[in-house]
C-alpha cells in the first residue's frame, strides 16, 4: 500500500482514523468513559436520534480489501452480497465487539439479513430495525415518521432516558454542519483542476462516519482551509463519476485515477447519497423534520419510482461536467443490478457513456478492472475529437 505523505496533514489524520477503524482511539476513549457506540447500516437510519441520545453512531462497513469470507459464506450463504458478507465476517471475528447496539432499516435483502444474523449470532445488547417504505408519498412519510417515533421511544426505554427536542435540534445542527461542509468539499471538485482527488475524497467520507461528528466537523474545517491554500492540482483526461452499489475503498478510485481519469464526483451511499440533503426544520417538529429528510434524501435504488434517482444522477452529471460514468456493482447486489439497463438507456439519451463493472466489495481494482477502465478512457478520448 502506498503511504505517501501529503502537505495536507488533516487528510493524514482522516486516513489514520480509517486505518485504525473499527478500533480507533476516539472510540476506545468513548468506551472507557462508559459511553455507548452503536453501529448502523444504510442511509435510512436516522443518525441524529442516536446522536441525540448521547451515543456515537458509526457506520458498519466491511474490510477495506477483497477477502476470503469463509465464515460469512457459511452464515449468510455465498449468494448474499459481498458487502453484507464482508461486514458479517468482521462482526463474527470480533472486530466490532465494542458495539452496544445495531440499528438497521428494512432497506434491501442483503442489509436486512445482515441485521438478522448479526442479532442472532453476535452479542448485541440493543438492536432495532425500522420499516422503511419504498415510496415518497405523504402516506409513506407518515409510516416512516411512525417508525422513527417508534425507534426513538424504543431507544428511550432501553436507555431509561428522554430524548428531548433540544437535544434533537442540537444533533440536527451538528449533522447539517457536516453535510454542509461535505458539500463545500464536493464543490471544489467542480473545477477544471481539483485540489482533492476522488480517492482522497473517499478517505474523508470514510472518516465522516467513523468519528464523532463534532470532531469530524472541526477537522474538515481545517482540511478545507488547507485545500484552499494547496497548490496541488488534480486533472485527468476525462471527468468521471463513479456510481452503484455500496463502495468505500479509496484504492478502487485511485486505480481509476492512476489510469488518467479524474473522478470528480460519485453517486454512492457512502458518498453523495449519504450527505446530500440537509434536515430542514422549517415549522415542523424536529423529529418530523428528521424523518422527512431521511426518506426524501438522495434515493437508494430500492426506492420507487427509480426515475427520482436517475434525475438526480443526470443533474449531477451536468453540474460536475462529467464525461463518462463508471458503474460498479458488487456481486449479488440486486437493486442496483436491476437499475442498470434503465440508467444505461437514460445516460445514452444524454450522450454519456457508461462502463459497467462487476466487482467484489472491497476490491481495489484488479487487472481486469484496469483493462476495462483503460479501454473506457481511450474510448472517451476518441469521442472528444
Amino acid at each position, binding site marked *: 500500500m502506498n503511504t505517501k505523505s501529503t502537505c495536507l496533514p488533516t487528510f493524514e489524520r482522516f486516513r489514520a482514523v480509517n486505518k485504525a477503524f473499527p478500533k480507533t482511539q476516539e472510540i476506545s476513549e468513548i468506551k472507557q468513559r462508559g459511553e455507548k457506540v452503536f453501529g448502523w447500516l444504510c442511509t435510512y437510519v436516522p443518525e441524529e436520534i442516536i446522536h441525540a441520545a448521547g451515543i456515537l453512531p458509526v457506520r458498519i462497513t466491511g474490510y477495506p480489501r477483497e477477502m476470503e469470507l469463509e465464515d460469512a459464506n*457459511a*452464515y*449468510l*450463504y455465498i*449468494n*448474499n*452480497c459481498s458487502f453484507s458478507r464482508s461486514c458479517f465476517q468482521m462482526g463474527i471475528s470480533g472486530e466490532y465487539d465494542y458495539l452496544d447496539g445495531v440499528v438497521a432499516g*428494512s432497506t*434491501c*435483502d*442483503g442489509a*436486512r*439479513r445482515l*441485521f*438478522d*444474523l448479526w*442479532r*442472532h449470532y453476535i452479542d448485541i445488547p440493543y438492536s432495532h*430495525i425500522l*420499516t*422503511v*417504505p*419504498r*415510496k415518497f408519498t405523504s*402516506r*409513506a412519510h*407518515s*409510516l416512516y415518521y*411512525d*417508525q422513527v417515533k*417508534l425507534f426513538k421511544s424504543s431507544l428511550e426505554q432501553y436507555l431509561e432516558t428522554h430524548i428531548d427536542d433540544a437535544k434533537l435540534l442540537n444533533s440536527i445542527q451538528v449533522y447539517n454542519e457536516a453535510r454542509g461542509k461535505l458539500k463545500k468539499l464536493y464543490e471544489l471538485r467542480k473545477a477544471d483542476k481539483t485540489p482533492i482527488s476522488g480517492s482522497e475524497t473517499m478517505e474523508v467520507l470514510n472518516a465522516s462516519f467513523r468519528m464523532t461528528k463534532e470532531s469530524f466537523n472541526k477537522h474538515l474545517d481545517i482540511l478545507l482551509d488547507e485545500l484552499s491554500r494547496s497548490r496541488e492540482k488534480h486533472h485527468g483526461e476525462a471527468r468521471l463519476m463513479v456510481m452503484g452499489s455500496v463502495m468505500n475503498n479509496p484504492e478502487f478510485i485511485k486505480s481509476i485515477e492512476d489510469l488518467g481519469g479524474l473522478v470528480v464526483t460519485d453517486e454512492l451511499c457512502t458518498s453523495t447519497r449519504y450527505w446530500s440533503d440537509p434536515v430542514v426544520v422549517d415549522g415542523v417538529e424536529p423529529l418530523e423534520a428528521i424523518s422527512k429528510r431521511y426518506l426524501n434524501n438522495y434515493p437508494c*435504488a*430500492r426506492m*420507487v*419510482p*427509480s426515475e427520482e434517482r436517475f434525475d438526480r444522477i443526470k443533474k449531477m452529471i451536468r453540474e460536475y461536467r462529467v464525461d463518462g460514468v463508471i458503474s460498479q*456493482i458488487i*456481486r*449479488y*447486489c*440486486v*437493486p442496483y*443490478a*436491476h*437499475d*442498470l*439497463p*434503465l440508467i*444505461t438507456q437514460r445516460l445514452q439519451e444524454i450522450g454519456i457513456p457508461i462502463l459497467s463493472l*462487476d466487482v467484489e466489495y472491497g476490491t481495489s481494482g484488479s487487472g481486469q478492472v484496469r483493462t476495462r477502465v483503460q479501454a473506457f478512457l481511450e474510448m472517451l478520448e476518441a469521442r472528444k475529437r
Partner: protein
Amino acid sequence: MSSAGTSTKIETFIQTANLLSRMNRSQPGARESRTLYYRMLADYYNNIHRARQEGKLIAAHTVFFPTEVLYAMDIVPMHMETTTWLSAFLLKEQSELLAKGSELGLAPEICSPHRGVAGMFALQEIPKPDVILWSNLICDNTAKSGELLMELTGSPGYFLDNPFQDSPGELDYLIGELKEMVTFLEEVSGKKMNWEKLSEIIERTNKEIDLYREINELRKAVPSPMNISGYLELISADYLFPGQVQAIEYLTKLRDELKSSILNKEGAVTNERFRLMNLFIPPLHLLGSLVNIFDEQGAVSVAEPMFTRWSDGKLDPSKPLRSVAQKSFLIPERRSMYGPLKGPAIPDIVESAEQYQVDGAIYWAFMGCRHTCAAIKVIKEALNEIDVPMLTIDCDIIDPTVNSEDEVREQLMQFFEMLEDR
C-alpha cells in the same frame, strides 16, 4: 393469435395442461385432484387467452400479489413468475428467455424467474398485459422488476408497497396502498370496483384458508398421503385462484382424497421409508425425476412450512379491502420469508419437524434467492437441536445449467443412505 402479441406460448400451456389432465384421468388410481390441478392451469391460461375477446384487461403481477382485487374487478391476472416457471416445467424452454433477459442487461445474479419474465416480455411471446403490478413482497427482485417491464410493454403500472413488520400503522399503510391501487385500476380499466364481489371473495378465502389448514393437519398422518409434487400443486391454488371457485373445488377434492387415503392407510409411495421436510422449492425442471427418485426410495414430502403454514386468523368479509390486506399478512410466505428473522419463521420449521415426525430435511438453496439462503445455517442449527439432519442442495429453480440431474440424484442418494443408517 391475439392482436396484441402472439399467444402461441399460452396456447401451448393450455394444450399441455389439457393433455396432462386427460393423461392423469386415464391413469388407474390417479388422483382426481391432480386432474383438477391441470384443469386449473388450463383455465387460468384460457382466461388470459380469451381476455381480449371478452373485453377484459390483463394485469401481469409478481408473486404473492393480492389478486382478489383483480378478480373483483373482472381483470384477468397473469402471474408472471408462474408463467416463467411453467416454461421450465412444462415446456423446458427457459434458456431462450434467460438469454433474452441477459441481453437486456440483467445480471446473472438476478433471480432467474425475473430474468425470464423480462425476456418473455421482450420476446413478446405472450399477450401484452395492459397493466403491470408489482410489489416488494417478497424481495428486492419483485420490488425492482416492474419498471423495466413497464418500458418493455409500454403499459402503465402500479407498485404496491408492502410494509415490513406488523408494528402499528403498517396494516393501515397497506390498506392505503390497496385503495390507491384500486383507484388506479379503475382509471385504467374504466370499470368500478365491485365491493360486493370482493366481499364474496373474502368469504370464500376464509373457506380456502380453512381447507389449507385442514389439509395441513391431514398430512401429519403416517403414512403420508401426498408425494413431493403435491405441495407445488397445492400452493398454486392460492397463487392462481385465490378466493375463487376453482381453488375451493380443488382443495375440497384434495382434502377428501387425503381423508380417504388416511382411512385406507394408503401412503403416497408404496413403501414409506423417509418422511422429509422440503424447504424452499426444488428445481422445477427436475420435478419429474425427483418424483421418480422419491418414489423409488420411498421418500415423501410431509411438510413444507415455508409455503404451507398459514398464520392464525379469520378475515371479515364486511371489510373487504382491510381483509385483502390482512390476508397478505396471513400467507405462509410472509411468515417464513419476510419480516425480521426473529419472528415465527424458525419456530414454524422446528414445530413442523416435530409434528410431522420428520426424518430429515432438504433445503433447496436457490442461488438467485438471497434472503432465504441467509437463513440456512440458522435453520440447520435449529433442526440439529431436535436431531433432524438437513441436506443443502445448491440449485436454480428454472436454469438447468446450474447443476445437473445426476448431481442432485447423487446428493439425494447419499442423504437417503445416511438416513437409513440412523
